[in-house]
């Protein structure tokens, strides 16, 4: 896609870009912001747009011109006054922050501007986050800090308190579906995918080599067995799901699919039948049947069980173990009180 960076920011977050423009016009840009939003919501795009706009020598109608020397340096990714930190591996460590802060004080010139972008702010270690507190509370004139996160509550309260928190607008479901359709992703998969992410790019990656299609089918089959209290589901964990769970990201997607399909079942049981609200539309019939078969309390218990599995993966419990245990506990729940 030959989309200019500022076009992307504006397409993804029109309201926020408009707001920032007004703030810049009034010269009221705060020194520290925390951008919050899921993957694909355009946090980084907005940050890039802001960088261009801030440094551009000849902004026009509130937009960077993209041609001046400053814009060019930013576009080529080597502007000395813009420093970016991102998680290498799972964390941002204190040394990295220290290094960046040093970088900042070194060349602080009179009247100049500096921009500090921290991606994955929630991935900072305690040490790293704490070592920023003084710095982001009262930085020198012309210094701006943008922090980006998918999960606001994982950012230290002392950090949040020092920033203006800007929540990205959620993408509209229809827009997202259109974009996926344009990439020729089949309808069934599109509907499921938007239940997991807002990022088109992410979905594209999952769909490579037909992996996502297999995952959706695998989870649906497992669901059909397990929701009948059928222990065949236990075998399906090994024969279908484990084979697909080749790396950590894929394991996560599979677990999220399991959570999502049971979420659909719960909604259907509560009388939500509008296909626009559901993701696994092909299973809707089966779900309808479950509503008559089990009590709401049972379905609730199962949904809650599926909400716990992501935590387990986070605690390094083996994927197969998680899903097998889950299968047993679901069957147990569905059989224990039983359909009368």
């Amino acid at each position, binding site marked *: 896609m030959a989309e200019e960076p500022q076009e992307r920011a504006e397409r993804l977050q029109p309201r926020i870009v408009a707001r920032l423009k007004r703030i810049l016009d009034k010269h009221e840009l705060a020194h520290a912001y925390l951008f919050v939003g899921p993957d694909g919501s355009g946090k980084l795009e907005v940050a890039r747009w802001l960088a261009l706009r801030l440094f551009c020598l000849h902004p026009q109608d509130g937009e960077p011109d993209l041609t001046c020397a400053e814009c060019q340096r930013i576009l080529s990714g080597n502007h000395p006054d813009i420093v970016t930190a991102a998680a290498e591996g799972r964390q941002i460590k204190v040394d990295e922050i220290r290094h960046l802060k040093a970088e900042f004080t070194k060349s602080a010139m009179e009247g100049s501007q500096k921009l500090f972008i921290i991606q994955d702010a929630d991935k900072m270690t305690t040490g790293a986050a704490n070592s920023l507190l003084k710095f982001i509370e009262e930085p020198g004139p012309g210094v701006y800090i943008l922090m980006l996160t998918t999960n606001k509550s994982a950012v230290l309260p002392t950090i949040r308190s020092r920033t*203006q928190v800007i929540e990205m607008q959620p993408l509209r479901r229809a827009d997202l579906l259109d974009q996926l359709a344009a990439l020729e992703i089949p309808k069934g998969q599109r509907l499921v995918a938007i239940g997991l992410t807002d990022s088109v790019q992410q979905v594209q990656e999952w769909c490579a080599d037909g992996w996502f299609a297999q995952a959706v089918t695998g989870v649906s089959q497992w669901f059909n067995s397990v929701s009948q209290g059928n*222990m065949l589901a236990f075998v399906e964990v090994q*024969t279908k799901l484990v084979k697909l769970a080749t790396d950590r990201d894929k394991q996560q997607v599979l677990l999220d699919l399991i959570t999502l399909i049971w979420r659909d079942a719960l*909604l259907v049981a509560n009388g939500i039948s509008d296909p626009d609200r559901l993701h696994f539309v092909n299973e809707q019939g089966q779900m309808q049947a479950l509503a008559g078969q089990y009590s709401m309390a049972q379905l609730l218990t199962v949904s809650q069980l599926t909400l716990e599995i992501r935590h387990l993966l986070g605690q390094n419990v083996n994927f197969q173990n998680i899903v097998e245990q889950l299968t047993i506990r679901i069957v147990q729940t569905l059989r224990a009180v039983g359909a009368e």
Partner: protein
Amino acid sequence: MSYQALYRVWRPQRFDELVGQQIVTQTLKNAIITNQISHAYLFAGPRGTGKTSAAKIFAKAVNCHHSKDGEPCNQCDICQAITKGQLNDVIEIDAASNNGVEEIRDIRDKAKYAPTQADYKVYIIDEVHMLSTGAFNALLKTLEEPPANVIFILATTEPHKIPLTIISRVQRFDFRRISAQDAFDRMKYILDQKKVDYEEKALWVIANAAEGGMRDALSILDQVLSFSDNEVKLDDALLVTGSVTKQLLKKYFLELAHHESANALDTMKDILTEGKDGQRFIEDLISFIRDVLLYQESPDLISVAATGLKDEDFKSLSAAVSATSLYRMIDELNDIQEEMRFTTHPDVYLEVLTVKLCQIKDQPTPADAQAVPQQDTTAQPAQPSPAADATIKQLQQEVQQLQQTVQQLKTSGGAVAKKPAQPRVKQRKVQVNLGQIYPVLGAATRKDLVNIQNLWEDMLNHLTVPQRSLLHVSKPVAASATGVIVAFNYAFLFQEATTDDNLIAAMEGAFQQLMGTEYKVVFVPKNKWPQIRQNYIKEHGLDRRKPATGKTTASAAPKSAASQAPSQATTAAPASQPTVPASPEPPLPEEPPVDGDDDGPADNQPAHSAASQDPVTAAKQLFGDDIVKIEDN
């Protein structure tokens, strides 16, 4: 010229400008007036409540030659240099960035030299919880042999990370979270000064969203201001804070109350598609329900103006649901809040929550009681009934057979991890503060308790009507010569009381008047109390005359809280009894808060000596027969 955030422009420069910290500021001013300066202070408390500001004001006040009533003049050269951060004798250190031994040793060496311009050299060691162990040791040495005319002020949001050896050498001040009222007043003041228009409702929304941080309130206010030209509007405040409007909350609440799950799910969808913040929504809903509960208890417990609703609204809302159900809702919400903290898919949680809340009924049917899991973050099946046992056996057999099948199917050796999942420990927002409880317990006597019981009514007479009704369901359970522990019947009221600084201050003030000495008040939820007391006895032994440190409490409590969970799930509370059913109680903190007493470890020992007594006898001696019996768990 860069824009200056409100919270920087409006940094308090006098003690009087610090809102919500009267006790702290009064004591500090007295110290200046009477010239009784300690050589080391600890300022502890939540983010954005005035610790760093107070440290700087204090640095000025001790050095200002024109100080009046304990306040700095802010005019003289010394004051102005300190405000600008240019006085060499006032040194602000970022402990998070300079946390090594070397850096602290360096301070030690330099602290020896007398101040050059000012009377006192003041070291403000901010974020002091980040010091390494080595650095703390180096600091300790300095505090043990304080150089003349040097004052250390340590500031932190996490006092439990400071070694006790340090704590015992400083004078400690606890900064409190800023109440919505104080935040509201301060914002009003600032806006009036700036001549900016505002809707009061907008300020309430901001004050509530700030959750006790004054800086947070000003950050939000700044952002709301950036939306409009010189006006603070309600709509903007709702948008910036991600708050759901009261009308939408009311609608949702009534749908829950009437068990209309499809409608409630629809409302939830509207809330989510507007991009409201899930966490904020839960918080808003909790305080909404809290208001309804308090209104049920007594209408003057809440300030209706601060809620953005009308009196009629509250009448109909509080008629819609019983207290029992409201308590259950709050418990569910507290649980989910914690679970949601680390998810990137909050929507599903909120939908499941919605269905769950719709299931809450005053009269649980047998099926409900059996199957609705009250809480199930432990890796246990919810209801071990005989029927379920049979199912489990059958399942185990099936699993065994299946595992053999699977074994044959296995291609690669995807080994199954043996380690069972760790049940996660839940945390509530307000926790029991062992650091304050243990010192009282350590010096508790039966005589003191009786004395306090006798004074209880008199103390109540010093309070306002709402404060009194909050204490309706509480009573003193242990007391020493310097403090009392008060237990609340409901966990929820415990939370309410603990965050009500005015209440604590009023009670302490009343006791001080009645007894003529300073007196500390600490709260606990009643159903946690037996456990706390038992742990204390176990850990400290009543015979050993050990000062209460709170140091050894780390492991026992959270574990037992988790292991109690499955049994709680089976006992459905009778509907008529407004207990908090199967409530996951506020667990004891994971890390023990260190001694919360200003005086460090208590040096006057409890009067009893109970060598070789069993804990129960010992406890009876300590607290009196009736109490031990009643509280038996």
